[in-house]
């Protein structure tokens, strides 16, 4: 028996740690790495924006309204990306605005994910009738156009950034529920769950300690992807006047305020638009990379 044991031991080859393995696969996707860097810069701006910005984001320089960016005639290095109709520095507003978008993303994803995971776990473990009820409710939420539903919710709750975040979180939640339930149902079949049951694990233990950690990979990916959806929806709500209220330098609200100057001063709409585009694109790229790195089916051994 000892001989057999030693041969067995030799057959085990050292495998790299989970994190290193993840990084190995993530690195292969160049777009994802670029996305990660942009996201890191975005997070940095969100944290330290007010200290980096050259001017106060809400200070109005009445003498310098609608100053073009520095490379255009009439532009100056004082306002690198120009000023808006009230004479506020565009660059400072964009930098400080990153904070709101980031905040929206973090809050919306945490509310939607925690609620969605909880409901999804319950649906996965519940008897069939409860499962059906939960899933049909989620189907109803999914059947509405998401922005429209968010608009209705904000109209009921009253326009503010907080209410917009709540509305977006509710709209995004069903995706988490479906995803969690699907992984729970497939994990539940496995023998390790049965053996935990034979050992006497209760439902709560089975749900949160045995099954949930094994369902997290697709949920993390969904979290990254809905981070960008949340930013986009918050900007859209802001543009429609239902999100952050002026003078908050939120990107969507900035777009809405500058609408009437599109023809006269292109920079007032272009830069907030580019900021939204670049951030969302970077996060989506990163999310795709995460999916590739976490999905075992796409791994080569």
């Amino acid at each position, binding site marked *: *028996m000892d001989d*057999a*044991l030693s*041969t*067995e*031991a030799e*057959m*085990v080859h*050292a*495998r790299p740690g989970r994190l290193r393995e993840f990084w190995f696969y993530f690195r292969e996707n160049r777009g994802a790495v670029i996305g990660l860097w942009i996201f890191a810069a975005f997070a940095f701006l969100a944290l330290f924006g007010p200290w980096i910005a050259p001017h106060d984001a809400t200070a109005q320089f009445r003498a310098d309204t609608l100053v073009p960016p520095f490379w255009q005639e009439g532009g100056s290095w004082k306002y690198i990306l120009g000023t808006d109709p009230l004479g506020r520095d565009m660059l400072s507003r964009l930098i400080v605005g990153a904070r709101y978008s980031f905040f929206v993303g973090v809050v919306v994803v945490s509310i939607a994910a925690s609620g969605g995971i909880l409901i999804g776990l319950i649906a996965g473990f519940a008897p069939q009738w409860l499962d059906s009820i939960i899933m049909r409710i989620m189907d109803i939420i999914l059947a509405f156009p998401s922005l429209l539903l968010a608009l209705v919710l904000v109209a009921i709750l009253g326009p503010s950034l907080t209410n917009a975040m709540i509305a977006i979180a509710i709209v995004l939640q069903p995706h988490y529920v479906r995803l969690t339930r699907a992984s729970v149902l497939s994990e539940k079949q*496995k*023998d*390790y769950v*049965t*053996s*935990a*049951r*034979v*050992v*006497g*694990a*209760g439902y709560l*233990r089975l749900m949160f300690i*045995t099954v949930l*950690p*094994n369902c997290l990979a697709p949920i993390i990916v969904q979290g990254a992807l809905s981070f960008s959806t949340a930013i986009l929806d918050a900007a859209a709500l802001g543009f429609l006047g239902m999100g952050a209220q002026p003078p908050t330098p939120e990107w969507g609200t900035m777009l809405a305020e500058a609408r009437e100057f599109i023809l006269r001063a292109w920079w007032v709409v272009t830069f907030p638009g580019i900021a939204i585009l670049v951030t969302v694109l970077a996060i989506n790229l990163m999310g795709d990379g995460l999916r590739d790195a976490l999905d075992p089916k796409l791994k080569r051994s």
Partner: protein
Amino acid sequence: MSDAPVMQATGLQRHYNVGGGLFQKSRVLKAVAGLDFEVHAGKTLAVVGESGCGKSTLARMVAMIETPTEGSLTLDGKPVRAEDWADLRQSVQIVFQDPYGSLNPRQRIGTILMEPLMINTKLSRADREAKAREMLKLVGLRPEHFDRYPHMFSGGQRQRIAIARALMLDPKVLVLDEPVSALDLSIQSAILNLLLDLQERLQLAYLFISHDLSVVRHVADDVIVMYLGRAVEKGPKAEVFDAPRHPYTKALLSATPRAEPGAEKERIKLKGELPSPLSIPDGCPFAPRCWKVQPKCRAELPRLRGQPHGAACFFPENGTYPE
């Protein structure tokens, strides 16, 4: 060792309702259709049969994962009912076939081993860890394996871990659901020897489920041969292997390779397919495939007769059907 069985089953049955759509009546699948057996401390009862004969359902009933539809199960003379499962869980543990699916990939080996103690006992963390490390040693793993994750182990080592986890609660009965079928031949014997060794040391009763007759020959004390949810033959290992009574047993035995080059070999080839468990023919379920079938076999269901070695056949080999 006392003679009273640790576990006793009488008329154990498990039915499933299958189908039952909008326009279809659901049909009853009898996965296990009446089974009696006894498991004694320190002894191994092996259950053999081809796939789909209800072996695994039996294992799941004994391990208290599924409730029997009918029949009773007793543990140490006390009836096993769904209400008492929580209390009786500790006495019956199970080892699964697939060592890759039976360990939680996100838990360290130490956590896997300590979890049963955490749920069922009030031991302190240090005590739990000490017990887990002791068990690791008992199943032939090294102390440094304690902090590793399951994916770092080979199939044989994983199966050792699964056995260790099953033994953490000092069970009386261990259900082994094809514990070596997924392993390499060389490692099979190591695991089997470990199991025999543990049985001797801890006086465990094994319910050993397998389709591999050579493995059963190695470990079993008593054997039950199952066919479509029923026991067709039951008896001490030596008698079943040397003088099989049921034609099905004889066919199974003739299909296993022997390690005796000179031995005369007469391979019995069964005709036909295993009937669908949804439409088991009247009479003897084996009748459509039997080579010595008589009109009586198609009309009447033979009962398992004879102690200690019995067969459910009207025209048994090596004996007669007692009327």
